[in-house]
Every structure is written in structure tokens, then in C-alpha cells.
């Protein structure tokens, strides 16, 4: 069984074809990094997988359950999207925490009111997660009282509290000052060690190298190359990949 199985995704905005036949499967415990230049379609791809955009064509399955299928050349989404949304979590570049909710409520509200899980159980889990992320003393703070790195860690906890099968990250550290990047990357590394299944769009090449099982290089709406971090970062045969990576060599 694949956790995520997304095939032949096409997506255009007007005349701009952003995704040109992209496919990806992710298995349990895998950490997949997606790299590529700005405008290559990384975010759009993630947004298609997390149902924030509808694909023009393609198929999508979570846990072998069909979410989007092709019928007579037209894409059809399942009606029960609420259940599907329970399978994944998404961490945004800009956190998108709810400013009027305390940290604890940000984390517990959806598990309680969307998933209808028992309050006490959710609360206990949330406090434990916050603790593990070094936010034990922030449960009653409001997002505006937190640093960027803390906000991003809260938003990771918020996603984790839904008990997702897979977690997507869209440039989780790009909105952070360099000195705050480390604390967020550390948390993601922790998750990787706990075998959390993750797809991470990132510009942090060293980080992608260190934690990924597989790296995907996207450019111009296609997957140019994919492989182990060693294959991509150290032994790429593709000129385009080499060019891109050169910009990150220091």
C-alpha cells in the first residue's frame, strides 16, 4: 500500500501550464524532498495533493483509497473529502495559525470539533507534542506572542495532532530568519527519526541531503530527476540539475 499515490497530474492557470504530467508515490516512513527553482510548480504540486487546488487531470489516492479518478477523460473527485483530509497534514510557509486562538486551541480545536475526538485525550496529546517541540510553556500564549520559529513549530504540532498518515511541508523555513531556521529543521529531523512520512518542499539543500530518502528535482512543471540524495547531490548526470545545484554551492 502507498500512503500517497498521485499520477499524471496536469494543472494550468489560464495559458500557463504549471504541472505537466507529474507522478509521485510515497510509502510509509519515507521522507521525500522536492527541490527546484522558483516557479517550477512545487507549491502547486503540493496544493494539488492537499486538495487546495483541483487538478485538470490526473489521479490521486491516499491509503489506496481513490480521491480523484479519471472517468471518460474527465477528472472526478470523491464526495467524502472530509475523510481524505484526515490522512494528511500541511505545514505552510507562513504558518497560517489562527491568531484569535491560543496555542493550545490552535492545536486542539480541529481534533475536537472536526474529528470529534474526546477533549481530554486530545488535550493530553497536544500538551505532550508541544512539550516534545520545546513549546511546553507556550500552551496559553497567542500566536502574536511567539517568534517565527515558535509559530512554525506550533503549526507543525497542529498538523500532527490530527494524527495524519503523511505530512506535507511547503518551504517551512523560508519565512524565518536564518537563526530560527535551525530550530524548525531540528523538529522535522526529529519527526524523520520517528518514521513520520513526509514530503518537504525546501530550499535547504544540506537539510534535504541529510534527511531525505529520496529527492525530487522539479523544473518547468516536470520532474527532471529523482533519486537518493547521493545520486542527486553528488552524482547527477543531468546538466539541468547540476546547474541548479551550483547556485547552492558555497
Amino acid at each position: 500500500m502507498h500512503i500517497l499515490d498521485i499520477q499524471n497530474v496536469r494543472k494550468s492557470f489560464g495559458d500557463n501550464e504549471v504541472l505537466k504530467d507529474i507522478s509521485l508515490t510515497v510509502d510509509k516512513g519515507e521522507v521525500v524532498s522536492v527541490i527546484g527553482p522558483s516557479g517550477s510548480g512545487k507549491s502547486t504540486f503540493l496544493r494539488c495533493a492537499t486538495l487546495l487546488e483541483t487538478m485538470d487531470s490526473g489521479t490521486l489516492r491516499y491509503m489506496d483509497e481513490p480521491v480523484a479518478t479519471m472517468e471518460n477523460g474527465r477528472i472526478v473527485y470523491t464526495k467524502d473529502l472530509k475523510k481524505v483530509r484526515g490522512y494528511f497534514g500541511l505545514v505552510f510557509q507562513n504558518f497560517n495559525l489562527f491568531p484569535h486562538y491560543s496555542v493550545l486551541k490552535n492545536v486542539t480545536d480541529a481534533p475536537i470539533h472536526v474529528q470529534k475526538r474526546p477533549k481530554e485525550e486530545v488535550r493530553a496529546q497536544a500538551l505532550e507534542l508541544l512539550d516534545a517541540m520545546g513549546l511546553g510553556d507556550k500552551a496559553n500564549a497567542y500566536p502574536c506572542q511567539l517568534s517565527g520559529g515558535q509559530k512554525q513549530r506550533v503549526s507543525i504540532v497542529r498538523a500532527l495532532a490530527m494524527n495524519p498518515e503523511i505530512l506535507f511541508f511547503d518551504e517551512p523555513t523560508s519565512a524565518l530568519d536564518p537563526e530560527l531556521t535551525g530550530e524548525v529543521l531540528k523538529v522535522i529531523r526529529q519527526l524523520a527519526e520517528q518514521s513520520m512520512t513526509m514530503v518537504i518542499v525546501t530550499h535547504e539543500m544540506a537539510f534535504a541531503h541529510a534527511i531525505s530518502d529520496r529527492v525530487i528535482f522539479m523544473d518547468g512543471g516536470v520532474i527532471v530527476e529523482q533519486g537518493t540524495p547521493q545520486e542527486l547531490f553528488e552524482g547527477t548526470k543531468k546538466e539541468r540539475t547540476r546547474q541548479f545545484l551550483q547556485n547552492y554551492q558555497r
Partner: protein
Amino acid sequence: MTFQTMVGELAYAFINTFLIFAFTLLGALPLGLIVYFCKKSRFLPLRWITEVYISVMRGTPLILQIMVIYYVPSLVFEITFPGNWRFYAVVVAFIVNYAAYFAEIYRGGIESIEIGQYEAAQVLGYGKLQTFVKIILPQMVKRTLPAVTNEVITLVKDTSLASAIGTIEMFTKAKQIAVSPRSPGMMTFLVAGVFYYVFNAIVAFVMKRIEKALNYYQ
């Protein structure tokens, strides 16, 4: 008429002023939200009707709207309302007028909320109604509070327009007293002004408190 009697009568008439004010807010604050939803409706004719309604409410004098609502049913359609129609006509006119303004204020507030809030809610599985009630509405209320306060303060002063159709409220009363023989004359209007001013000071104070209470987040 002594000064005291005059003040007493104005104070008594102020009860009606306050009732017009309170009923208008009770009606117009929620109605404004409904108007906003009509304006955003996917049903095109409803959207058009709402556009026209809002532009008429904003483009014509409130005093005229009061007169239309008061006179048209009886003069044109020969409908007679039981009870104190003068009073209700004013309240209806105010509610309908202020709802249009509130709808526009709400629209500004709602549209200023980042798309990311909707996206985060969607990914977490919140339904449309849940997202609006739990995530969007509270933030909208906070952001629109200063503009709403302005409208509320204007409303206090606008209640005096009810005198156009002779509804008994404080300003109508003041006019009656001022022209009656051996009354304190112009002094009556001065006192009425003090009533409005003090009431608005209280309104401003209450709204500030609400704003402060919502300051627990940015």
C-alpha cells in the same frame, strides 16, 4: 414651563430615542451579515438586487427613506398598520439603511482576512460554516469594530431624523417644547444636545471597552 419640567420631558422622550437606537442595532448588525451573503451569492439576480439595494440606501437621504417607508404603504397601497406605525416605520427604515452600511463594512473586514486562514481551515477539515463562524467571523469583528463604532455613533445622532414623520422621540419633543408658549425656548435644544452628547460618550466608552477586550491578540 420650568426648566426642570422641560428636562424631565426630554428625558422621558429619550426612552424612545434609546429604543430606536437599540432596535436598530439589534436588527441591522445581523441583517448586515445577511446582506453581505446575498451580495456574495452565486445566484446572480439576488446579487443584482442587493447591489441596487445597497446603492439606493447609500445614495439617498435617510430622511427620505423614512418618509417613503412611513407614507408609501398607506398612501399607495392603502394598507393601514395597527399600533404605533410611526415608531415602527422609523425602526424599519433605520434597520434597512444601517444594514446596507454594515454589509459594506463587513465585506471590507472579511475580504481583508488572509486566504491562508481559509486554506489552513480547509486542510484541517473544517466545513464552510465552521470556518466562517469559528475562524473568519471573530477576526472580522475585531477588524471592523472601529468602523462599526463610527456607524453606531452616527446612529445616535440620526435618531433625531425620526422627527421628520413626527415619531415621538427626544428631538421631536424638543421641537414641540421649543415652540410652545412660555417654554425655555432655544435652551431646550441645547439640553437635547447635551443628552445626545452624553449618550454618545457612553457609547464610545462601551465600544472602547469591547475593543480593549479583543486586544488579547493582534
